[in-house]
């Protein structure tokens, strides 16, 4: 089934999406990958403030290529989600429970998504030019020293993704 999800999300919108649904995202999306996850997890463990509110917001695993003149970002497709698996259950428990990436997740992540009623949405891997064309603004929120891995906030429209794990912990195709 084809659905829309506006970000920041309401729980009702999230709960309406089922594994196997085609989802069009729009609104505000936060962007972070490996090193950002390591730092967010460290901030939680050390009781330090987080660089953006987790509640209602979704995170996209992505590190763009540089923006040529006239573009907001360069290519901006998803990176492999599995590398974020060690951090995702902790972050989901603190409210960052809607995730956008590519590829399979661990059993622990699936369990955390079900428990906290989040989502795992898969963006289409390698489609960096397509996603870039649907980003209308981008700004650095934190960790600029990470270069292409910095934490960003982007505005998106008609961002095509596919629901792999829904808020009940159901997995598309039955496997995580």
């Amino acid at each position, binding site marked *: 089934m084809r659905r829309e999800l506006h970000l920041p999300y309401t729980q009702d919108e999230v709960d309406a999406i089922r594994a196997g649904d085609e989802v069009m995202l729009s609104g505000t999306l936060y962007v972070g990958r490996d090193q950002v996850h390591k730092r967010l997890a460290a901030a939680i463990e050390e009781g330090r403030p987080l660089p953006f509110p987790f509640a209602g917001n979704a995170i996209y695993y992505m590190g763009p290529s540089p923006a040529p003149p006239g573009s907001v970002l360069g290519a901006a*497709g998803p990176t492999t989600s599995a590398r974020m698996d060690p951090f995702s259950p902790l972050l989901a428990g603190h409210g960052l429970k809607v995730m956008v990436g590519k590829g399979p997740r661990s059993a622990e992540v699936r369990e955390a998504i079900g428990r906290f009623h989040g989502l795992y949405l898969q963006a289409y891997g390698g*489609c*960096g030019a397509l996603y*870039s064309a649907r980003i209308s603004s981008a700004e650095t929120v934190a960790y600029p020293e990470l270069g292409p891995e910095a934490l960003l906030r982007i505005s998106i429209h008609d961002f095509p993704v596919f629901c792999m794990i829904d808020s009940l912990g159901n997995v598309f195709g039955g496997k995580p």
Partner: protein
Amino acid sequence: MERDRVISSKAEDRIAEALIRAIRVLPEDVESLIRRAAVAEHGQAGRLALGAILENIDEARRSGLPLCQDTGMFWCLASVGRESSVPLCRVEEAIIAGAGRAAAEGYYRKSVVEDPVYSRRNTGTNLPAVISYELADGSDVTLHFLFKGFGSENCSSLRMINPTAGEDGVSAAVLDMMMKAGGKPCPPVFLGIGIGGTMDRAAFLSKKAFFTEPEDSPLRRRLMDEVNGLGIGPGGLGGSQTVLDISIISEPTHIAGLPVALTVNCWADRKCSIVFKEGEL
């Protein structure tokens, strides 16, 4: 000396130009295999992924953005003719200068870090490149480039299997590596397989394989069928189109071993070969 510098800078221009194009426009044979897969795929979700991939190929061509933000680590095989008069240090200089310019002027993502274990500080240049050299017949110098994205490279692997394991053993090793990869390497994928030699030689051959004409051997046909039979499908969303092509290079090995190396490339199988005739480099 003045003349030498001019020639060298022209070579650098040619390399940079080819590398800037290669991350935006796929080789024709690669694109046609993807288009064929889009017709052949019957899995509903897999078709969605292939639809996005085709849209992305068109968008990259239209906008001039790279196909994928992971513009990869430069992997270069310099194949130097035995009759070539070009000193190897000139070949190296041209590769590094051309690649460095492509990364800067071609809006490559700077994806290379200095120290792999500790600082992981970005070099900011997408260099160093991984360069290998080999001797070939004739007087040409050919530079073969892969733009090695690491979503797929993290799924590349190597097995030292039993020397008596035969074709069944090779197949079992490849299938096991592909099952572990699942949807991670952005399928449908291209596979390079190196068999024989030593551990490092097999790994090298698995990359060199992307620059050989695929030979339709019984092993290749078997692996095409079996990998597609895994049902991983485009984007890992299920379907019949998991692998688009497989190239295999086999070489002699030791009586006690059978090294099998697998390099996985995503559907965006970006590569190029640049040929310099005698006097052009």
